[in-house]
């Protein structure tokens, strides 16, 4: 059993020519039973209409593969009323499993708080795009990119929230992120991204505990699975990472 806690559905990436059928086929070949995906808008301050359109792409994928693809509802927290309505539409109405925040605001900015309170009320996780980027391009292009520090601060304000720090392998300084969230038990970490640094998964498990580490690919399929297979974990730890932890989070949902 494997649950990918962080992927994207077809047409989420600019220029990507694969389909949801390709995604599910890749999952089949890697033994991934469930894909939790989203369609975030990665640049600028998207309007409520654009956000709605993006979430419709995720809903379409969920409709194509209802047993295989689950969705996160992407929102731009800058639009309080519209984004709250979008959450209601996608989570209450369409059965999405959580909230996806991208780089429109830092995770610890007050504009995010009402949505965290709503996620607590509904018992759904918030997956936050994150990295402690060390390169100029990323810093320039994503000036409000959250890292472990921002997420840890949000988690301390809302200890009942379930927060997932996105893609430890997404390219930032992952050692920074581990240290930042180490002592904040309501922050989970997903393993996705293209970076497959040897020892990364073991260090995450050692520092956070296996219960807080969630397998993900971010559509880096072989790398995502390969690094969990390669990590020196016990069978029990590997099962926790591959699926048990995410299954537990999904079971916490009240809606």
């Amino acid at each position, binding site marked *: 059993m494997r649950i990918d806690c962080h992927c994207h559905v077809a047409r989420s990436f600019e220029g990507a020519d694969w389909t949801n059928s*390709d995604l599910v086929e890749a999952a089949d070949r*890697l033994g991934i039973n469930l894909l939790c995906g989203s369609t975030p808008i990665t640049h600028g301050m998207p309007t409520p209409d654009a956000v709605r359109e993006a979430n419709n792409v995720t809903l379409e994928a969920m409709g194509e593969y209802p047993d295989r693809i689950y969705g996160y509802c992407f929102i731009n927290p800058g639009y309080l009323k519209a984004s709250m309505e979008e959450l209601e539409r996608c989570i209450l109405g369409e059965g999405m499993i959580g909230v996806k925040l991208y780089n429109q605001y830092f995770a610890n900015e007050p504009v995010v708080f009402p949505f965290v309170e709503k996620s607590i009320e509904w018992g759904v996780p918030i997956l936050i795009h994150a990295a402690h980027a*060390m390169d100029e391009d*990323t810093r320039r292009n994503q000036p409000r990119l959250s890292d472990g520090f921002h997420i840890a601060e949000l988690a301390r304000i809302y200890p009942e929230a379930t927060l997932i720090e996105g893609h430890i392998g997404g390219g*930032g300084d992952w050692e920074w992120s581990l240290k930042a969230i180490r002592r904040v038990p309501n922050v989970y970490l997903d393993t996705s991204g293209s970076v497959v640094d040897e020892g990364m998964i073991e260090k995450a498990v050692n520092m956070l505990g296996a219960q807080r580490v969630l397998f993900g690919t971010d559509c*880096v*399929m*072989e790398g995502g699975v390969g690094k969990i297979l*390669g990590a020196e974990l016990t069978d029990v730890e590997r099962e926790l990472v591959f699926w048990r932890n995410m299954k537990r989070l999904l079971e916490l949902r009240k809606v």
Partner: protein
Amino acid sequence: MIIDANTYIGHWPFRRLRYNTVEGLVKLMDRCGVDKAVCGSINSVFYKDCQEGNEELAEDVDEYPERIIPFATVNPAYVAWREDLERSVKDLGMKGLRIYPLYHNYSLADPRLGELLKEAAALRVPVEIPLRIVDVRQRHWMDVTRTLTLDEVAGLVKAYPENHFILLNGIGYEKTQFAEMKQNNYRIEISRLTVLLTKTIPRLIETLGASKLVFGTGMPFSYPEPALLKMELLEAGLEVKEAIYWRNLAEFLQ
């Protein structure tokens, strides 16, 4: 048989590596079934006199002649590099070279690099070019700030047809001039390519032929399992897989 084109030993100053001794590397190779590995010295990247790292590498791998294929790191911008090259290849038995233009602060258009490549061609040793060592997005603040681009490397490969180049840690070949570069003087190492979803390995096989690809992992910087998983998932005949696992690289090592 599996030959890994892309391994290292030595101290990386910006992150603690496990398995970065020769014993550690061999242990990882045993774990994942890699028979032989091309290996360079990380220390050579950082020592001013990178030959010292080559000497260390030669001593370290001495006990594993059947497992480790040492490649010398040569810096053409440093004095007496010809002596280093000759010593490494003729005395130490190094089977190829690695160059690090960004770390050693010279451009691919530098005439001194041209001289080195001519010497390498005369000695009939292949040249490995790591386009990057680690992801620049997670760079240490004292590390290099960029990755070599495929276009600049393509220019070099075209300009020196007598050399054999092995390109490590690259991605996106299918979107560059490499997609149409049929010449047989280069190989692409697969550790960052894909079989599923974006399918860059099958696409390169289709456009360039399997003869251009070589297996590599990036150990001990990277887990070896993702690269092995790609090969396992690649839908290709035994002949193609063997070519990628070792034959294409062995051709350059002869």
